[in-house]
């Protein structure tokens, strides 16, 4: 049995999902010889630390009932610096202007030779090169499947499963909020504002939806794709972006009459990184509805490969994080 000491930094929907799957998958993890011992959990205000392993069920319960994880006034950064452990699960909120706390957390983790698995897009979209260099220089493993397409495997699919194939183009829907709004606008023949309000009511869109509907979230994911799959050194400033706010119900209807749906499509290839609403033939694999994400890769040997799945959600995103963690330590 190999024991991996873990800290979970950031305890929102994704961090809680990680705690839950580590609890739920204990028997399976035992069976493959892995013991994930969470030694610290931190949210934005409090922390809980236990070298013998934090009681995750109790922490989840406290977060739900009291809105905090514990009673210690220790920051995530201090935990990463001072508590002895192997892996930092970095699930703090994304900040694409500065990289936010996530960037500092990751760099600190690498400085102390700790491995990092994250769902936090910001630091990767801002400082990909620096993060990769620092992790490599310190011998730290660094995985981030959850940053692109949530549960849907994209990065590991392209880099590991399809190894040997040159990927020439990736096109897809990488934002469930936009997909939901466009799908519903077409179904109800309703204006953008109305369906945005519905998405907000259902919790699919934030109060300030800019990040999703203006295509910035999609752009960040494309930057990570471009860097990790196409070997570029891009930042989100290298992406040309058009959002969905100008789409009219009439345009959706006209498209439908011609056999198309309109989707916010992210596209990466050697010549460009682009986010824009595009016409997708209704019978094309990219024409998925609701909040689904989808990615279609043009590969050199295998031809087109398309995957679809849930792009967000607590347990779904935690699934991608869990598989990254297992892939680091299973040997």
């Amino acid at each position, binding site marked *: 049995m190999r024991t991996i000491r873990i800290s979970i930094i950031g305890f929102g929907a994704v961090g809680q999902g990680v705690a839950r799957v580590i609890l739920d998958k204990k028997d399976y993890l035992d069976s493959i010889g892995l013991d994930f011992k969470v030694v610290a959990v931190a949210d934005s205000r409090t922390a809980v630390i236990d070298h013998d392993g934090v009681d995750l069920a109790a922490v989840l319960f406290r977060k739900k009932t009291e809105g905090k994880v514990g009673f210690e006034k220790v920051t995530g950064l201090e935990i990463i610096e001072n508590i002895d452990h192997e892996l930092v699960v970095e699930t703090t909120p994304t900040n694409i202007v500065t990289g936010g706390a996530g960037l500092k957390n990751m760099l600190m983790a690498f400085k102390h030779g700790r491995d990092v698995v994250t769902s936090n897009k910001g630091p990767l979209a801002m400082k990909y090169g620096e993060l990769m260099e620092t992790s490599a220089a310190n011998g730290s493993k660094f995985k981030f499947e959850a940053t692109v397409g949530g549960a849907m495997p994209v990065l590991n699919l392209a880099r590991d499963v399809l190894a040997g194939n040159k990927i*020439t*183009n990736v*096109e897809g829907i990488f934002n469930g909020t936009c997909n939901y709004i466009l799908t519903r606008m077409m179904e109800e023949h309703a204006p953008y504002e109305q369906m945005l309000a519905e998405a907000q009511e259902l919790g699919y869109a934030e109060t300030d939806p800019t990040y999703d509907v203006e295509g910035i979230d999609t752009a960040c994911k494309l930057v990570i794709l471009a860097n990790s799959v196409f070997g570029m050194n891009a930042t989100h400033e290298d992406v040309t972006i*058009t959002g969905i706010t*100008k*789409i*009219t119900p*009439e*345009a959706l*209807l*006209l*498209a439908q*009459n*011609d056999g*198309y749906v*309109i989707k916010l*499509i992210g*596209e990466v290839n050697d010549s460009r990184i682009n986010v*824009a*609403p*595009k*016409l*997708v*033939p209704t019978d*094309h694999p*990219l024409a998925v509805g609701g909040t689904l994400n989808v990615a*279609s890769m*043009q590969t050199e040997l295998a031809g*087109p490969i398309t995957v679809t799945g849930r792009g967000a959600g607590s347990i779904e995103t935690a699934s991608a994080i869990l598989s990254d963690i297992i892939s680091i330590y299973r040997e």
Partner: protein
Amino acid sequence: MRVSMDIELKDIPGQLLLALRPVSEFKGNLISVVHHHEKRTPRGTIPVQVVFETKPDNLCNIISSLEESEIGIARIDEKRYFEHGAVILIGHIVHTDIQDTIDTIDNTGYAEVVDLNLSMPKIKMPSSASLKIDAVSKEHLASAIELLKEIAKKKDLLVIEPIKSELGAV
């Protein structure tokens, strides 16, 4: 452009060669020749279907050359555009001179706007339009759409184009 032609040959040796020579002389590219030797027209001639690609300017030369050789032409069918594309425009489409937008594509010589559907829900609200564009090849279709995007940028119109794998450029 691609031309499909039904011609009629006299039942004497050398006629097929005589009929095909003008196509190659004027740099046409033969696609197929179907020679119905067992059939006869009521005029006692042999019907042949020829399909070839040529530049529009050369078609007249080919026809006159065939006529000089006394080869009967029963039917000519020309098709200039092989690629069909659709785009959606959103914005003040009419007020930004829709004629000019269409002319820019039509004047390329390799692409044409062949269909337009316009939806104008309210005065001063943005309109939506679907445009069908025909072009001589995939590459020409792609450049017609690029051209449309340039004009649209100046006129503050949003262009929604087909995904890349649909354009066939991957």
